[in-house]
C-alpha cells in the first residue's frame, strides 16, 4: 500500500528524518515506537502533507501514486488519514458541518454522487456508537472545550466517518485513561479490514495490548534502527530505549 524509501525531511534547515525505509501492505498494522524527539510525529506530519517540512530526499509511493506530489487535501481524498497527537480546536465550526463538507468534497473528488442527508445522518449515528462519542459533542464546535479523551475519541470518530485506507495514529494513546484507551482501541479494531492499513505511533506499548501490531519498528534519531514482531514492543517496554541506543552505539 505504501512504500517509503530513503525519506529525508527537515524543518527550518534542521534535518529530522534521515533516511526512513518502510513497506506497509493492506491489512497490516505497524507500530512505530521510539524515544521523544526521534522523528515519529515528523514522519506522520510529512505523510499527511504538512508544508512546513521540506522533503530533501527519498520517495513515498502510495498505491502507485507519488504521495509527496499531492496536497494535504488530495492525500486525504486518496484515503490517508492522520489522527493528531494534539487535535486542533476550531471554535465556530461544528463537527457535523465540517464532516459534511469534507465528505462532500471527497466524494466529488472521486466522482461519486453527493450523499443524501438521510444517509449522512444514519452514518453519523452508527459511527458515534463505534467510539461511544456523546451525540451532543458532534453538534458542538470541533474539539472546542473537549477533554483530552474526548478530543482523541473525536479523531477516531472522524476516521470512522472518512473510512481511510491508511490511518496514521499519532500518539493517540497519550493522555488517555485506561477506559478511554480501551474504547479507542476497540474502535480502531472494528475499523480494521484486509483492505486498509494502520500506522500506530506511540511511546509506550500499552495501546499495543489492545491493538495487536503485525510489525514493530523503532525510530531513533531520524532512522528506523530495528524492526521486529510484536514481541519487540514488550522488550522495549522492559528494557527501555537505552538498550537500543547501546546497541547502535556498540
Amino acid at each position, binding site marked *: 500500500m505504501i512504500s517509503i524509501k530513503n525519506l529525508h525531511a527537515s524543518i527550518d534547515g534542521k534535518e529530522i528524518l534521515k533516511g526512513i525505509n518502510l513497506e506497509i501492505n493492506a491489512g497490516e498494522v505497524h507500530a512505530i515506537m521510539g524515544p521523544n524527539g526521534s522523528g515519529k510525529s515528523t514522519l506522520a506530519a510529512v505523510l499527511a502533507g504538512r508544508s512546513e517540512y521540506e522533503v530533501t530526499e527519498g520517495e513515498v509511493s502510495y498505491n502507485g501514486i507519488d504521495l509527496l506530489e499531492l496536497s494535504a*487535501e488530495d492525500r*486525504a481524498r486518496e484515503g490517508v488519514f492522520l489522527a*493528531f497527537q494534539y487535535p*486542533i480546536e476550531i471554535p465556530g465550526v461544528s463537527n457535523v458541518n465540517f464532516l459534511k463538507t*469534507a465528505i462532500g*468534497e471527497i466524494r466529488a473528488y472521486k466522482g461519486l454522487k453527493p450523499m443524501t442527508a438521510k444517509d449522512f445522518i444514519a452514518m453519523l449515528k452508527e459511527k458515534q456508537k463505534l467510539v461511544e462519542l456523546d451525540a451532543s459533542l458532534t453538534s458542538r464546535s470541533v474539539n472546542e472545550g473537549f477533554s483530552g479523551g474526548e478530543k482523541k475519541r473525536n479523531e477516531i470518530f472522524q476516521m470512522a466517518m472518512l473510512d481511510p485506507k491508511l490511518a496514521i495514529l499519532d500518539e493517540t494513546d497519550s493522555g488517555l485513561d485506561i477506559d478511554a484507551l480501551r474504547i479507542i482501541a476497540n474502535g480502531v479494531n472494528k475499523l480494521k479490514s484486509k483492505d486498509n492499513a494502520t500506522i500506530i505511533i506511540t511511546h509506550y506499548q500499552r495501546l499495543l495490548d489492545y491493538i495487536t501490531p503485525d510489525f514493530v519498528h523503532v525510530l531513533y534519531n531520524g532512522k528506523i534502527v530495528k524492526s521486529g514482531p510484536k514481541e519487540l514492543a514488550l522488550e522495549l517496554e522492559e528494557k527501555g530505549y537505552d538498550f537500543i541506543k547501546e546497541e547502535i552505539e556498540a
Partner: protein
Amino acid sequence: METVTKTSTVKDKLILEFEISKLFLFGNTKLREQAMGSFYKQGIPNRKHEEYKYTRTDVMLKEEFYFSANKNCNDEQIEHLKFLKDAYVVIVENGVFVEGLSNLQNFPQGLTICSLVDAEKSNSPVFEKHYAQYADVNVDPFIALNTAMTKDGVFIHVAKNTIIEKPIHIIHVSTAFKNTIIHPRNLIVVDENAQAKIIESFETIDSTAKIFNNALTEIVIDELAIVDHYKIQDENELGYLVNTTQVIQRKQSVFSTHTITLSGSLVRNNLTFVLDGEHIESHLNGLYLTTGNQVVDNHTVVDHCKPNCNSNELYKGIVDGKSTATFNGKIFVRKDAQKTNAFQSNKNILLSESGTINTKPQLEIYADDVKCSHGTSTGKLDEDKLFYLRTRGLSLTSAKKLLMHAFASEVIDTIKIVALREYIEEKISKTFE
C-alpha cells in the same frame, strides 16, 4: 502674467449652500446657525486631525459635489432592499422620508413613525424635548454639519410600556447621477419600560455618481426600556458614509447595537454611548469585511457616568486587498461610576499583504472599584486550523471559508432577528466566495 483662480473649497461651498437654503429648512434656524458656526471653526478634518487621520474625508471631498438629488426610486427598484418581510418599513431616499414607498400600515397603539419635518411641524412635545440634545456639534464637524444642513429623516417614538414586536426597518437609499452630499437625520425615543427592534440599512441603487452620506441618529433609551438596534451598511463602491450614532441610556435600560459593514468605499462610524443611570446594560457589536481600496473606520465611545453598569464591546473584521480598517474604542469610567464592568475586544484577520489594520483601544478610568478589560488581536488565518481541515479532505478554499465564517459567527450570532441573521449570513457567504 497668468493668474490662477483658486476654486472654492467644499467648506466654502457648504457654507454658501447653507446661507442660501437655511430659511427653507425645517426647525430652529438659530440652532442651525450655531451648528454652522461650529462647523466653520472645525472644518473638514484632514490628516492633521487625530481622530480622522486614517479616514481622509478631505481627500474624497476635493471633487465637485451637489447638495440635493431628485427623487427617482420606484417600488420595484427598492423591493429587494426590504429584506425583512414582516416589518414596518421606512424609506429615506437621499435623506428625505418617502411615505409613498414605506410600509407603515396598522401601527400598534403607542408607536409613532413619521418624518422629522412632520414631527417638527406638529409641535410634538417628544420631538421638542429631545431633538438635537445629545449629539454635540462642537465634538465633531460632521455632527455640526448634519445639525446645520439636515433636510429630513425619521422620527420614531415608542410610548411608555409599549412593546413593538415587529422590527422597524429604516432603509436609507441613495440614488445619484452626479456627486451629492446628503445629511439624513433620525431621532428615536423609546420611553420607560418600552421595547423595540430597529434596523437601519444603508444602500445605493441605480447610481452613477458618488454619494457622501453624512447620516446621524440620536437614540434615547429611557429607564427599563429594552432596544435592539442594527446598522447594515452596504452602499457599494459609490457610497461614502459618515454614520454618527449618539445613544443616551437611562437607568436599568438594556441597549444592544450591531454595526455590520458589508461594502462602501469609505465608511466611518462614530458611535457614542452615554450611560446616564445605574444598572444599565450596553452591548456594542461590530463586523466589517473589507476588500479592494475600502476604508472602514469604527470609532466608539462608551461613557460610564453612574455606578453598577455593564458594557460589552466586540468588534471583528476580515481585511483583504488594499483595504484599511480602523478601530478606535474609548471607554470612560467617571469618578461616580463604581462597580462598573466594561469589556472591549477587537479582533482582526488580515488576508492580504497589502491590507492595513489600525486598532487603538483606550481606557480612561477615574473610579477605583471597577472591572475593565480591553484586548485586540490581528492575525492571519490560523495555519494549524487550515492544515487540520485539509487533512480531512477540505480544499484550501473551503477550509478558509469555514474559518472566516467561524470567525464572523461570534458577531453574527448576536443578531437576534432570525430573518436578519439569515440575510447577513447569505451576504457574507457570497463575499467569501
